[in-house]
């Protein structure tokens, strides 16, 4: 039996800043030990415990897609003790990773269906992993139509700008970008995500919706999706609760009889309705 809390060492290969304010960065990491890299199998939507020795560890969604060989990407916002320490790192520094944890997006259940991805602000990381996974040539034909609706406060806050551009050019998906308030030179839509979602009204026939964003956006998007005909068990949410151990032992992310880190973070709206309103 190995110590479940022992992280594996990874080296920071690249650090990409995601917004002008530079408080959100994407870290590209490679495991020091190729053996570990080989059997670090993960699905989109899973997270890992990223640790900076001396500061602690925190659960971060894996932003890269499982199809990307050889590296892992984490998008981290500078907000707490560990994230501040990570933001002070430079390329070549060594940090700890343990995981992958959580159930991730239910890829098997989504196969052969239309996919609607609704993301808001900084919580687009695991949705991007899902989108990249679906758009990969080996997987694309297993899924039908893909719609991505992604909004942020202003253009600077939109994450993964190169991906968004690439997706804009592709024909086999429909990308709708929006920002909250009008900004000069912005060609995309303007308005909050729920309103834009209602406007673009993706068809709910044989479709699954994956949504992740700030609580206020989710609060207003769920009714829109139900109105569009999405049944409660076809709306998938990735919850953001305070987690610590990541393996369902420390009790922090306990809602009702479920642990968000073990039984989630992806839940269907149906499951959430049965759980106590504490998320």
């Amino acid at each position: 039996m190995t110590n479940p809390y022992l992280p594996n060492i990874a080296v920071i290969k690249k650090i990409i800043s995601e917004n002008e304010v530079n408080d959100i960065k994407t870290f590209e990491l490679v495991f020091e030990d190729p053996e570990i890299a080989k059997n670090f199998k993960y699905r989109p939507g899973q997270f890992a415990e990223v640790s900076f020795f001396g500061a602690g560890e925190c659960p971060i969604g894996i932003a890269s897609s499982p199809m990307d060989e050889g590296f892992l990407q984490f998008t981290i916002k500078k907000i707490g003790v560990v994230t501040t320490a990570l933001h002070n790192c430079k390329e070549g520094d060594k940090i700890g990773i343990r995981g992958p944890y959580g159930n991730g997006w239910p890829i098997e259940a989504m196969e052969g269906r239309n996919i609607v991805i609704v993301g808001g602000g900084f919580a687009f990381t695991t949705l991007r992993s899902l989108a990249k996974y679906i758009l990969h040539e080996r997987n694309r034909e297993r899924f039908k139509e893909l719609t991505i609706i992604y909004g942020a406060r202003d253009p600077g806050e939109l994450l993964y700008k190169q991906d968004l551009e690439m997706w804009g050019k592709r024909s086999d998906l429909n990308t709708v970008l929006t920002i909250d308030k009008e900004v000069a030179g912005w060609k995309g839509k303007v308005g909050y995500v729920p309103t834009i979602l209602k406007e673009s009204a993706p068809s709910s026939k044989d479709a699954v919706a994956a949504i992740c964003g700030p609580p206020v956006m989710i609060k207003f998007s769920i009714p829109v999706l139900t109105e569009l005909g999405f049944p409660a068990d076809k709306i998938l949410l990735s919850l953001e609760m305070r987690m610590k151990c990541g393996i369902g032992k420390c009790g922090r992310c306990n809602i009702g009889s479920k642990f968000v880190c073990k039984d989630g973070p992806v839940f269907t709206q149906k499951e959430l309705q049965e759980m106590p309103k504490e998320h």
Partner: protein
Amino acid sequence: MKAKIMDKNELQDFVDELTKDYKVFAPVKMNRIFRLKEISKGKEACLGYQNTRQPPKEIFFPQTEILFTYKMDKEGVELEDIPLPNEKRVLFGIRPCDARALVFLDRFFSSGDYKDISYLEKREKTTIIGLACNSPLSTCFCTSLGGSPFGKEGMDLLLEDINEKYLIEILSEQGAKLVEHIPWLKDAENADFERAKKISEEAESTIKLKIAVEGLRKKFDSMFDAPLWDQIYQKCIGCGVCTYLCPTCWCFDILDEGTPTCGRRVRIWDTCQFPLFTLEASGLNPRPSGKERMRQRVMHKFNYFPKDFGELVCVGCGRCVQACPVNLDIREIIKAIMNT
């Protein structure tokens, strides 16, 4: 089920035998309260106590436990896992409710695909010798929750005080192995079993409090938004006494200590009663006030855990009732829930 018998005055020699090749933990009186401490000689242990202030979980799941230490320099990071204890241990003289609580902890820490090895390793290497309760306290309500003053769950040996002698019931093969060491123990006759049985019925009858807990789990299903929670939590001051003294509370926090070049990662007890337990980095706290936190403590024990593991996870030891600074009595909460 075989059993041995020994006179009361042979107890110290019994423990001395154990200390020869086991590391023995036993209740020791420290100024006014009893605590489980490692002892080297039989006479340090004293069994004239109702229950230890802290449950035996502190022996297996200590309040501060090092997960690993790290050392970082130019070449790389060197992680040193903490060597697991290898010496055999004996936990002497714990009460049936606490032993039963350990069974819950075992089930939880070994559930799922990530096992908590430091806890499980210590548990495996420890033989449990329980002490039956001849005179339960007024705050004890183990009989309402499936336990009993002479309960045998989770123990390897059970000492039953039958006036001038101790009846030692052997409950597991690990217990049997322990008793083989001690040649001068005599086998028990039926008269001893009868006397023990009589005392156990007497003890059980002293617990008058019978809380109807059948259907409690189902009743709680609809209790999440009950207005009752608004009154119950008002006097709670949000300290950690009830959870730190509870034998079936195991929430913890993980944090790093030291400098980036070398230090250690430590696991410490934590409690759902503190606001920081669920405070998120964004500032949102799903359990902002004492009401949600008090509700979480009660609901987890009587509804959430039973949904996963099938049984209510309170053993009725009464420690939270005795130690609560504002006398917030969980028995009253259960009664209030039952008759809403």
